[in-house]
């Protein structure tokens, strides 16, 4: 029996092929395949091509189950840039690939753990909407943590 192949399309309309039995590690894809056989192209409008390439690399891994956990850790470690990791986490969230999402989020948490406020805001694309008074109130409440 020949292995069935699926085609995934990224946000910037690039096409990627992947064998179906590997692609269904994504719960989202698994459900699509179950529902309509997913014969045509599966569009992923929130995932860019670079990230999708990474996801496919991850799905194509050939690890023994007992080495898998270490592999996922190493996989995200090697891509230690926060913007890449966030894209990867978001793609993993959309595609419902739990292990990859857990590992990526854990890595981001590790990286921002010792950041200053400004750095956290910048890393996670957040605008500061707190007034200095509000900041002071928190600082007073949790003096021991600062």
């Amino acid at each position, binding site marked *: 029996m020949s292995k069935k192949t699926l085609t995934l399309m990224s946000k910037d309309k690039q096409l990627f092929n992947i064998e179906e039995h590997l692609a269904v590690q994504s719960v989202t894809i698994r459900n699509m395949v179950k529902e309509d056989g997913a014969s045509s192209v599966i569009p992923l409008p929130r995932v860019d091509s670079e990230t999708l390439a990474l996801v496919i690399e991850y799905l194509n891994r050939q690890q023994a189950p007992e080495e898998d956990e270490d592999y996922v850790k190493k996989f995200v470690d090697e891509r230690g840039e926060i913007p890449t990791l966030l894209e990867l986490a978001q793609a993993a969230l959309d595609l419902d690939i739990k292990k990859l999402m857990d590992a990526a989020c854990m890595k981001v948490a590790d990286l*921002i753990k010792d950041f200053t406020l400004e750095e*956290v805001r910048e890393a996670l694309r957040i605008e500061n909407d707190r007034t200095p008074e509000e900041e002071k109130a928190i600082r007073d409440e949790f003096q021991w*943590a600062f």
Partner: protein
Amino acid sequence: MEDLPAELTIDILSRLPIKTIIHCKRVCKKWRNLVLDSSFVDLHLSRSPTGLIIHIKPERSVYDCTDPGILKWVEIEDKVNHHHLHHDPLMRLDLDLTPILQNSMIFLMDSVNGLICLCQYFVTPKEDNTYICNPITREYMILPSQRYYRESSSEVIVYGFGVSSRTGEYKVIRTFRGDVLPDGNKSYPTVVEAEAYTLGTGQWRSLGRVPYLLNGSHGFYGPFLNGHCHWIIHDNENSPRKLCTFDLDKDTFQLFPSPPESAQVNWFGYHGLAVLKGCLCKINTYDFEVMIWVMKEYGIKKSWHKEVVITQEISVDIEWPLCDAMSPIEVLKDGSILMVFEDKLWAFHPRSETMEDIKKFDPDLSAMAYRPGGCLPNAYAQSLRLHLPYQDCGKNERIEIKCLTDAGKRVNSDLKTQKQTPPYFVNLHLSRSPPSLIISRLTGGDLSNPRKLGILEWVEIDEKLDRHHLHHDPVMSLDLNISSILRNSKVSLLGLVIGLICLSQLVGPEGDNTCMCNPITRKDDSRMVCGFGIVPMIGEYKLKRTFEDSNSTSRPRQLKVEVYILGTGHGEDWPCPLLV
């Protein structure tokens, strides 16, 4: 750039230490709301690590023993390549059973969802009691007296403890076999009666005559699996041993497929049942051989498979012929089988075919697999609930230690069902927080002599696979000097649930106060209490206090019980317990 989805933000934040989360409240309003807008939810944690409950029996002979011993909770670090049993003296949760269970013997029955079932035998008068206990929260309840009870030593009482998969009700099954009826009349033939107690109902129900003579594992209990309790049937000598189950949904006994063994082989040796890796197992211990049968698919006779055989060649440490049953309790990821044999804890390694004596604990123990998680539901209020004391350590200075996140972890469980609701974050963070300790250094002694009361310290634990370290960084430390607010009184640490600490303050011989405090936010609240816990389904924190009724004229004074629900502003009276 687009905003990150809230789900992703929550997931990342929940992996941060509490200190960083406080920083994060300052990042932006959305984050503050995510973190602040959170009442606690009360589903239990399904991710708890595997562990054991070990019962260290007192050294004296079984027959004149008056000391019920100690329960220990042991966490197992279970990896594919190795395992390690953690019983760090700082982290340990030893329950000294002596004060509440005096002059009796205690036997471990079964553990379901973090609750354990204990059986208590008194030596004089010859009576028995059944307890359900959550060792993590230290709550326990005594079940009411059953119709048939122990009067001599010849009765056989066999237990089962489990939860109905349909209704979620916890049930204790107790079968009694003896010659004596409660009214003292001799009765032949032997009475074989079963009774069931559903937690929350307040009374035992008769199930009538048991169709089979049951023999439990270790002689006392039938392991619980798949909505059923399982026992070996004590049958006539010429047929193979049969199995029997009790269906907790339907309340019926029925026969169950047994391993394909011949009748002769079956009569000799010790036979026991266990649940290992989610499968029912039968363990046969003969003079020179031990075999473990595993039922791979529940209820399918053909799936019985002889998985492990231990013979004389593999272990020189054991004395052959064997004169005690081997009782497996847990299979670890590296394949080792933890078992109790001759009142000691062993690990059998199937790959190397060796038997290792785990000399970590005092011998003369019994043990069972245990996963924290259960709460005694609120509906059980009519049963007596008290707290077990911790084992005291130290002499003049009492140091009490409670594990902050383990208490917190209990709340968290099926996160999927809670997705998108605010408490989701709190749950997620609790489940990912590293363990930490609250240490109280409290000076005990004479109340009339005012003295410094001591300090509460918060200690974070840095836990790695190969080592651990207790952080108590002076910059980070959260030492609450409790002397300033609790002057001239004696303070003791009562309990700790999900980050809230409950302190009791004795002001003098006549007065006492209770304080609730959150050591992280340093907010406190004065209440009267001596039991403290959270009601799982509705998320209420409850305090319970037992005290002597000063209006009572009888001596000793009558005891009263009061319960206070946080946030309601008033207490409610509970019926007075008979035993305290």
